Structure formats: structure tokens, C-alpha cells
């Protein structure tokens, strides 16, 4: 009984010494770009004068240079971030010159024999001095327990922040530790159910936050900030995850957005801070390590939406086969006719009901941070039944500097409803004029001309145009 008591006191004390007690207040502000601000307030009993405080439970991806510590009547002497991690190898290396205890076990009888040894060197193997003899640890392969007297001070299980404080008085007071950390980020996910007959969408918006910091944040007061924070030197032009997901078939670079996007000019009734919209979570939540958490922020039913078709021919060239037009969903984030909110960047997933009334997935796309009042058009996929084949009928030289190119576009519609296709010819930059065309085009930009082509149900339409290009 005495033995057990002794043991437990030995075991519990060190735990209590390294953990920082007291009810805390944890506030986490999460930005889109894998960045979060953690404010960790704890009640600490600080002695008067200098003392060293350890914070072992900070984020595993803390940016230690951003740490600040705030408490009354306290000045900071120094901050240290120790990342020398405790392992058997490190333990032995730090024991060079120190004494350790060996417990040898007789393989035949199981009898134990203890002796003290001094570690002379740890280079490829462990060389020990035992009394007057020198020996290599476990050279004979027999079992030997090595017992170290203590864990060296600067070896830690996790990267640990320690702060040396100079306190003007002793006593318990709140101490706030704040720092930036990577490994936490958020985006929006929109579940969009599209009813094509009625021309409406029901949209649920979820904020999706992920925690890969290696640390669990218990009962955190969480605020999400929508907007891009400049992070020096951390601009991500290339996302290796994309490559991994798509595997052996790398996707082509994303096409330019379809026509129908127009930024809005309305202000939502959201809390905002400068350029950023704020999405506070209603209650405290625990953000566990390796967790994906979703909280609802938007629920709209019956917003107007419609289907459009877009086909873009990249250059004045023939395509050997007809290819499908993009199927585009158009809607608005305006107060009167749309979702009535600013939309943080994220993924819009579109569902439609099948013949049995089950929602089926019909495609997804990304939106950027979208102000309220915007017209939004996202390509969800390709239309199976609506196809376009551009054919270059003729290209002839008019004179030394001008060429004339005659294009024919055949639009087919195998579906039993009439459709309108926005047919775009791009690659017109330079001095390119349309000399003749079978229907009036609009010039979207120097680079692109667009025809709105009506294609009858189960029918076909043709557009011809002659381009006059100067080289």
C-alpha cells in the first residue's frame, strides 16, 4: 500500500508541474489562407521577480516569432521556442558524461543485477565505464535495462514555448498568449439544389474549417474572417494537393469564367472589419486535431437561377469532332433576387433531382470572395446533348499583311427543349475584324466575339463568320 502511494505521488507531481492549470479562455480567429490567430488566456500564479513559464500545449505549427504575451505588472525577459524533441537517442546523447543505472537480466534465471555506469560516448554505439572497466552497451546481445535519473531540461515531447517573465508582484492573474499558426484554415461549401423547371435554387452555406496543427483547441471562441490576408512570401501559385487528387490525368488549366459574372455593389448585414467579413460561430466549440468541422451560415430557398450554355473556341481552327458546350448555372447574390449575402470563397456543389426524386450530384465549381449583389455564373460541367463543332472552311491571303479566315460553327441539340448557346470565338487579339457573319455578334473584348445562338429542340443551328486579320 505504501509502495503504491509513493508511486502515485512520484508520478503525478511532474505532470502537475508541467501543465499550466487554471480555467482558461481560448479564442481562435481563422483566416482563409491556412492561417489562424490563437489567443490563449490562462490564470497563472506568477511569483514576484523572474520566473519561467512553459506553454506546452500551443499549436504544433506555431509561428514562434509572432508570439506576444500580455499580463498586468509583468515584463518579458525572453521567449524561447524549444524544438529539441525527447527520444531515446537524444536521451542517451545528453547523458554523455552522466551516470546511468543498468539492470542486467540473466536470460536463464531471470535474475536481475543492478550497477551504475558512466556514459563515455554515443557514437554509433554506446560506450560505458563501469567501475574500472570499459564496455559497449549490449555488446553481448543480452537484455540490459538502461535507467536514466531524469529527463534533461531542454528535451521536450512537443515543441514548447517558454517565456521568462519579470513580475512586479506575486499573485494569480490572467495571462494572454497570442500567436499566429499555420495548419488551420477555412472555406465555404455551398449545397445547391437546382430545380430547372421552376428556375430556382435552394442554397445552404457551410463554413468548413480544418485543423491540422497537431493540437486540439478545447472550447474555443471561434471567429472566421473572409478575405485574403497578405502573407509575405507565402503566396501559393501552385497547390500540390490538386495534383495528388487528380492522379494520372492532370486536368487542363481552368478555363476563363463563363459570361454572366458581374461583381455586386450591395452591403450585407454582416459584421465586417475593413475588407473582411466576419463569421463568428455562435457558441464555443472544440476544434480537434485532424478535424474537419462544418457550421451552417446561410440557408436560402427559392432564389432565382437559370441554366445557360457556353462554348468557347480558343483559336480560329477546326475541331475534328463536335465537343460539348459547358453547362453553366447563373444566379445572383443580390438582396432582392438572389441569395442576399456576401459569399465567402469556396466550392458550390450543384444537385438536381432524378426521376425518383433523389438528389443527384451534377457538378461543382469554385467561387471567389463574392460581394453581395453580384451576378454569378459557374460552369458545372458539360452538356451531353449540346455540342458545337467549329470548322475552318478557308484561310486565304488577301495581301501581304492580311488574311481572311472563314469559320463555320455547327451547333447541335439532341435534347427535347430549345437551348441558347453563348458561342465565343477567342484568340482575336491583334487587328481582327469580322468582315461578314450570319448573325450579329457582340465583341466581349479585343480578344473575344460572342454570338447568342438559338438551337431548336432536337435540332441544329449554324453560324458562319469571316475574320479579317492583320499579321
Amino acid at each position, binding site marked *: 500500500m505504501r509502495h503504491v502511494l509513493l508511486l502515485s505521488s512520484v508520478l503525478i507531481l511532474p505532470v502537475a508541474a508541467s501543465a499550466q492549470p487554471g480555467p482558461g479562455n481560448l479564442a481562435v480567429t481563422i483566416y482563409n489562407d491556412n492561417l489562424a490567430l490563437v489567443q490563449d488566456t490562462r490564470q497563472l500564479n506568477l511569483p514576484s521577480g523572474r520566473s519561467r513559464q512553459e506553454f506546452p500545449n500551443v499549436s504544433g505549427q506555431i509561428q514562434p516569432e509572432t508570439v506576444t504575451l500580455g499580463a498586468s505588472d509583468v515584463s518579458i525577459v525572453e521567449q524561447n521556442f524549444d524544438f529539441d524533441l525527447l527520444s531515446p537517442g537524444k536521451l542517451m546523447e545528453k547523458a554523455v558524461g552522466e551516470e546511468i543505472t543498468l539492470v542486467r537480466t540473466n536470460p536463464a534465471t531471470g535474475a536481475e543485477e543492478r550497477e551504475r555506469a558512466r556514459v563515455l560516448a554515443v557514437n554509433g554505439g554506446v560506450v560505458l565505464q563501469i567501475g574500472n572497466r570499459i564496455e559497449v552497451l549490449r555488446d553481448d546481445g543480452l537484455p540490459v535495462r538502461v535507467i536514466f535519473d531524469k529527463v534533461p531540461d531542454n528535451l521536450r515531447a512537443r515543441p514548447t514555448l517558454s517565456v521568462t517573465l519579470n513580475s512586479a508582484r506575486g499573485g494569480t492573474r490572467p495571462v494572454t498568449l497570442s500567436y499566429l499558426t499555420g495548419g488551420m484554415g477555412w472555406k465555404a461549401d455551398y449545397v445547391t439544389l437546382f430545380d430547372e423547371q421552376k428556375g430556382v435554387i435552394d442554397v445552404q452555406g457551410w463554413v468548413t474549417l480544418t485543423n491540422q496543427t497537431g493540437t486540439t483547441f478545447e472550447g474555443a471562441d471561434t471567429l472566421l474572417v473572409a478575405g485574403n490576408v497578405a502573407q509575405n512570401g507565402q503566396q501559393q501559385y501552385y497547390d500540390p494537393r490538386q495534383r495528388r487528387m487528380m492522379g494520372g490525368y492532370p486536368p487542363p488549366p481552368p478555363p476563363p469564367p463563363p459570361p454572366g459574372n458581374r461583381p455586386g455593389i450591395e452591403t450585407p448585414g454582416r459584421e465586417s472589419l475593413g475588407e473582411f467579413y466576419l463569421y463568428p460561430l455562435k457558441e464555443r466549440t472544440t476544434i480537434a486535431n485532424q478535424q474537419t468541422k462544418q457550421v451552417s451560415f446561410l440557408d436560402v430557398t427559392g432564389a432565382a437561377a437559370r441554366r445557360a450554355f457556353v462554348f468557347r473556341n480558343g483559336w480560329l481552327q477546326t475541331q475534328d469532332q463536335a465537343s460539348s458546350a459547358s453547362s453553366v448555372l447563373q444566379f445572383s447574390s443580390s438582396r432582392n433576387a438572389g441569395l442576399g449575402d456576401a459569399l465567402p470563397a469556396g466550392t458550390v456543389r450543384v444537385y438536381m433531382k432524378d426521376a425518383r426524386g433523389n438528389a443527384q450530384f451534377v457538378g461543382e465549381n469554385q467561387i471567389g470572395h463574392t460581394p453581395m449583389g453580384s451576378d454569378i455564373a459557374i460552369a458545372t460541367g458539360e452538356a*451531353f446533348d449540346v455540342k458545337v463543332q467549329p470548322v475552318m472552311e478557308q484561310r486565304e491571303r488577301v495581301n501581304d499583311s492580311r488574311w481572311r479566315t472563314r469559320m463555320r460553327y455547327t451547333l447541335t441539340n439532341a435534347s427535347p427543349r430549345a437551348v441558347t448557346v453563348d458561342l465565343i470565338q477567342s484568340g482575336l487579339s491583334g487587328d481582327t475584324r469580322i468582315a461578314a457573319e450570319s448573325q450579329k455578334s457582340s465583341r466581349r473584348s479585343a480578344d473575344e466575339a460572342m454570338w447568342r445562338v438559338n438551337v431548336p429542340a432536337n435540332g441544329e443551328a449554324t453560324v458562319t463568320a469571316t475574320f479579317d486579320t492583320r499579321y
Partner: protein
Amino acid sequence: MLFRRAALGFIAMMLAAAPAATQTIATSRGPDQVGVTVYRAPFRPPSERINLQWLNGFALITETRRVSIPAGEVDIRFEGVAGGILPESAIVTGLPSGVVEKNQDAYLLSPGSLIDASLGRRVHLRRTSRATGAVREVEAVVRSSAQGGVVLETEAGVEALRCTGLAETVTYERVPPGLAAKPTLSVRVRSERAAEATVTLSYLASGFDWQANYVAELSPDGKRMDLFAWLTLANADETGFRNANANAVAGRLNRSSHGGIRPRAEPLRLECWPMGTTSDVLQSMPISAVGGEEIVVTGSRIARADLASAPPPPPPPPPPMMAQQEELGDLKLYRIPEPVTVAAKSQKQVAFLDRDRVKVESLYRQRISVQDTSIRPVMRVITTRNSTAEGLGLPLPAGRVVLFAKGEARPVLIGQGSIGDNSVGEDVEIDVGAASAVTAQITSGPRPSRGGPIVAVPAFNQEWELTVSNAHPYPIRFEAELEPGDRKINSATALGRRDGRPLWAVTVPANGRATLRYSLNPSS
């Protein structure tokens, strides 16, 4: 005393459950009913077969589950979801009261995470004497993470796990909270009273794919074709779906999800201090050696079990169950009419098309650059139109085509091709392969004068001949799509046009030749 112990136990339980004391957990073990809609890998070309080891398509899984929800704040955990779940796509409907939040925890229970989650906590260190078999257990506190070896603090001091040569291991009293066998999706709800609910859970999952596989049999005269098609579904997930309403969607969808957090199951890497000795004889490490052996044995066992449970090959048709096609927005949905089992790590085939005597045309063609005397081999192509008049007239999703000719005793494989997504009214063209009995050749004239030097003749004055030879005992159709470059073709033979290119279409007599003579002028 008994009472006191019970009270202590109760307090211990309270302490252990303290972080989770505010909510209870309701677990849904698996779906009662499940629907699986499989989508093709968006960027896999039609000619490429499904690689069962590397499926890049995805699926929408829709599950119906009965859940009993106690009153108060409850975490409803959904077990048995597909491993490739994209957690941010999860939709939960049918809950009687509001969803507070949805969570997916991907910190998995593993030897390493047991150590990591027990950091600073008490565990048991058990040693078994190899000599006597006596077991000794001491208490220890974990002092290090699982990366690079485990350091324990015992009554005796600080020790490293398994660096001793003794038979020793760490045991735990319970699984630390927050660790699960698989990534687990949960929904936190707050309900005023207990209720039974039928919940629909749907989510996207990776690791699926499908394609159409066409089997075509050509009549002896080459004018008719029997076309049969399989809907081939593949599931690489470790989760199978029993009695599922299975569908497949044809057409290309836009995808932009990157996938969520990858599940993390920390391995336990036990490293010790340097173990070099004075001898270079390999130090016997009995424990790791045994461990290695065990891994091999289990591996082969699993492989054999997999083979045994692999589904039998699909039985031959008559009458095959046919998947039914319906419209889904701008896509095509194929519904398998009866519930089927989409087993884990398996491929499944259901027929969706069976048309006899489709009118086809068999022809030979090549795209020919008019000044290039090296011509690629002539290709044999089976063409038809996707219309009811020809015996088709239905959407044909992308896939590979295996083409047989009806032989006298047995069908003969004559080629394998593929078709892309083909809508009603489009031309269907199946490339069968290079022809050996039909050849095309370009020669240029005039011939150099006998004995004299070869005079370079300007190309546009030159006479050219394109000759097609047919070694078959029957006439064939031949089409040459000509690529004049920036030249104009002059020929006494009338040329057609296709897709902006001059087209020479000709019937070559049995065991005969046909020739196109032309010259080239600079354009304008």
C-alpha cells in the same frame, strides 16, 4: 468499503468523461438503405481502360439511417461510411432539430496515436521474463511523442521502450478520447426530447469509376452490327454497399474539390540509441524479426481471402437485366433497376444496351498530307449514325468497343476501338485498327530523265499520284482527307469537303486500285 470503492470508481468515471460530459453520443452503425451513383473519372480518355488500382472517378453515396436521438446535446456518429468520403460534401437531412455542427475526425487509433494521446498520462509497462515466463507490470508515464522512440518515466527513473532486449510492452486502461478506427463523421444536434429519426446522409466519395464497354459483332457482309453494352462499375473503397440502388452518370462534370484532411494514423517507430557493438555479426533482434515474419504471413492471408471473396464472373446474358437511362439536367443517368450489391474492391457489370442489326458502313480512311510520300497505314473504320433509322438513336456514353466478326465457327476479334460521349443524331465512328490489305501510296512525277541528274522540280509544278490498293476480293470504300497546307489542289477528279478539308471518296474495286492525280498551286 465496497461503497467507497464504488464511489471512487464513479468519480474516476466522471473525471474521465469530464471533457465530453456535456453531450452524449448516439452511434449509427450502418445504413439501412443505400444509393450509390458513380461518376466517371473526368479526365480519363474513352480509350483508356479502368485501372482498378487507381480509380479517379467518384460517387455520390446516399444513405438512409434510423437513429434514436436522446434529449439534450448529442453527437450522432455515422459509422460505416465510405473511406474516400469528402467530408465537406456531407449533407444530413431528416434530423428533428437543428444541427449545431458537423465534424469529421481523422485522427485514427493506431499504436503511435495511442502513445501520442497518452502523453503525460499513466500507462502500464509489462515485462515478461523469457526465462521463467513471469510477468511483471509497473506503472509509467509517457514522456515523449511516438516519433523516434518512446521514453517512459517509471518509479526507477527514465527508460526507453524496447531498447532493453527484454520482452516488454505498454498497455493502456482505455482508448484515449477522440481516437477512432476510421475517419468518423458526426453531427452535433440539440434536441429537446428523445426521438427516433430517419436520417438521410449523402456525401461524395473518391475511389470509384465507371465506363461503358461495348461489344459489337459485325455481320459477314459488314453491313450490320449487333451492339451490346455493359455498364462497368468499379469500387476501390474498403466499404461495400449491400442491396444498393446503383446508378451511373454519363457526361463530364466539373470537379474542383481537393479532398479533405487525410486520415492520420501515427505509426509507432521505435528507435533506440545507437546500438553498434564490437562485432559486425548481425545483432539478432528477435522482436523485430518475429514482427516482420508476422506481417508477411498476414499479408498473404489477406490476399487469399480477397481472392476467395471476389465476385464470380457475371453470368452470360439471356435475359440480361438492363440499366435504364433517364435525364438528369444536362447529364444522363443510368439506373440499375434492382438493388444490387456494390462490393468493396470490386468491379460490377450490368447491361444497358442491346441492339441487333444496326446499320453500319465499313470503310477505310486516312488523313493525308498531299506532299508527304510517307503515309501512315490506312485505318479501318466502322461508321453509323446515332439515329433510330440506323437502329440506334440513344445516348452512347464514352467507352471502349470490342469488335468481332461473325466467323463460320467462332467469332473473330477484328479490333478494339473507343467512342466518346455520343449524343443522338451524331455520327458514330469506331476506329478498328490499321488495315493490312488496303494500302495507300503517294508518288511524285515527272520521273527523272534516264541517266541524267535528278532535277529538283518546284513542288507546285509537280504531278502527284495518290494510289489506293485493295487486296480484298470485294470492293471497299476509301476516304482520304487531304491536307493541302497552304497549297491549292488541282485535279480532274471532283473532290468533296469535310470539316474544311478536301475529301477524296472512292470505291476501290475488288483486288483493284484507284488513283487520284493532282498538282499543287500556291494558294492565291
